[in-house]
């Protein structure tokens, strides 16, 4: 397959991250020697027990943090900080409370100096695309959780980033909303459309079934210090949305679960003492 042949869009080379714990609490080793190539246009999911460093990994790629050791390359060049080519969707939405839906969506183009008319038009289109038509002038606190998530997605899309970095974006919404948003996410990404310039997605999730349903590959992290325990290819055809109830999906979920069960059990045991 040529995706596998092409150069990685993101390369993590023996990346480690150690935090100085607050109030003089010593060092916390969050990630240890992570090496990973992310292929252009792929949908990559990251799963692992709580506290294993998933968010840290995403923050490193986003450029909010820098590695303690190792190197992270984006299109062959070291990442030095956040940039609009790597869009981020946060678990807590991180919408600007003082901006309306439109104001949030247009922030990226605004920050990059796009003129008022052009960015307004674009934001309007995106609001419609994610199903927020009629809510353009609402403030985030006036929206439901699912609507905030759509708004955050539209805000990310407005910059047309090459990479979507998503930290448990659907964790805080109810099950029905999650299913709908999963399908929409796939549609917006270009599920089932073979396209050379499809965005690359790095998607952190707690849900094994979510990871299997969405991703081309699933990276399983081991508990702290976070290391790569397994990388599993999900060879299901696309589009994926119709596969929700196919037995094959359940079989892969089971298989994946057996890989991470021990980790999860041990993580829980460690939390207990």
């Amino acid at each position, binding site marked *: 397959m040529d995706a596998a042949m092409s150069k990685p869009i993101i390369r993590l080379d023996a990346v480690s991250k150690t935090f100085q714990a607050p109030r003089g609490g010593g060092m916390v080793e969050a990630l240890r020697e992570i090496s990973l190539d992310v292929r252009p246009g792929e949908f990559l999911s990251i799963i692992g027990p709580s506290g294993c460093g998933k968010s840290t990994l995403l923050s490193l790629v*986003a450029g909010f943090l820098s590695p303690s050791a190792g190197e992270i390359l984006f299109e062959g060049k070291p990442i030095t900080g956040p940039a609009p080519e790597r869009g981020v969707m946060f678990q807590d939405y991180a919408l600007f409370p003082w901006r309306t839906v439109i104001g949030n969506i247009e922030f990226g183009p605004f920050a*990059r100096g796009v003129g008022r008319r052009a960015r307004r038009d674009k934001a309007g289109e995106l609001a419609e695309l994610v199903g927020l038509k009629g809510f353009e002038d609402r*403030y985030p606190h006036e929206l439901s959780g699912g609507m905030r998530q759509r708004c955050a997605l539209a805000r990310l899309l407005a910059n047309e980033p090459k990479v979507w970095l998503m930290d448990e974006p659907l964790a805080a919404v109810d099950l029905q909303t999650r299913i709908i948003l999963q399908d929409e996410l796939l549609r917006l990404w270009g599920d089932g459309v073979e396209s050379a310039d499809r965005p690359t997605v790095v998607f952190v999730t707690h849900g094994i079934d979510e990871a299997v349903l969405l991703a081309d590959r699933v990276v399983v992290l081991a508990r702290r210090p976070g290391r790569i325990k397994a990388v599993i290819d999900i060879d299901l055809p696309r589009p994926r949305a119709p596969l929700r109830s196919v037995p094959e999906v359940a079989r892969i979920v089971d298989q994946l679960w057996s890989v991470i069960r021990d980790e999860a059990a041990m993580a829980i045991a460690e939390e207990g003492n």
Partner: protein
Amino acid sequence: MSPAMRIGLPFAVVAIVLVAWEIAVRASHTQGLVPLPSGVVHSALALTEDGTLFSALGSSLERVVIGFAIAAAIGIPIGLAIGTVPVLDRTLRPVLDGLRGVAPIAWIPMAILWLGVRGDAALFVVAYAAVFPFILNTSEAARRIPRSLFHAAESLGAGRLLLIRSVVLPGALPFVFTGARIAMAFAWGSIIAAELAIGIKVQTARRAVAGIGQLMVDTLYVRRDVDALVLYMIVIGIVSFLIDSGLRRAQARLMPWTQR
């Protein structure tokens, strides 16, 4: 309860109390020490008519507004700086806490020594009283802005300047406004105190800058008019209520996202 009753009843209660008061004071011959409601109304009319009340109120308010503006201009930038730069916070906070411990009123002798009694001393005290609420609330506000909002803005392409303009300022604004309301209350409270303290001197020097505090001193020592004193107290209460509700309304207008 009918609407007419709901509005009418409190008025009726107040009216009855005032009438009873009037009768009690007249019967007990304590006029001159205890105010008469009718006397207060009389003073209000007289002092409004000859312009004394409004000119005093005007000069007090002028100092409050100028002192408040100076406090905002100094306090907000300092607050933003120490709220966003931890090193500044660690070095400046003890100094600020120490200064804050000295009550504004305690500065009056110094202020008079440095600035004279023309009203500048009162202005200094007002600005001093109002600057701390600005600093404290603004720094706390800046600290409380969630990290993820900075990260979101940065990853959407915002540079340093835009981060300040589009995240720090709007993020801190609601809290700063709360600070402004406290600062205004402090400013208005300390202008009266400062004018009271400076008052006598101004009177002997026959300055034309008397504020409402000076007027109270004059009323107490020279005119011995207890009704007018009470009138001033009522006016002070009304003015601070009006200022605060004005600020609250401005907040609702300027920051629709803070309305729940």
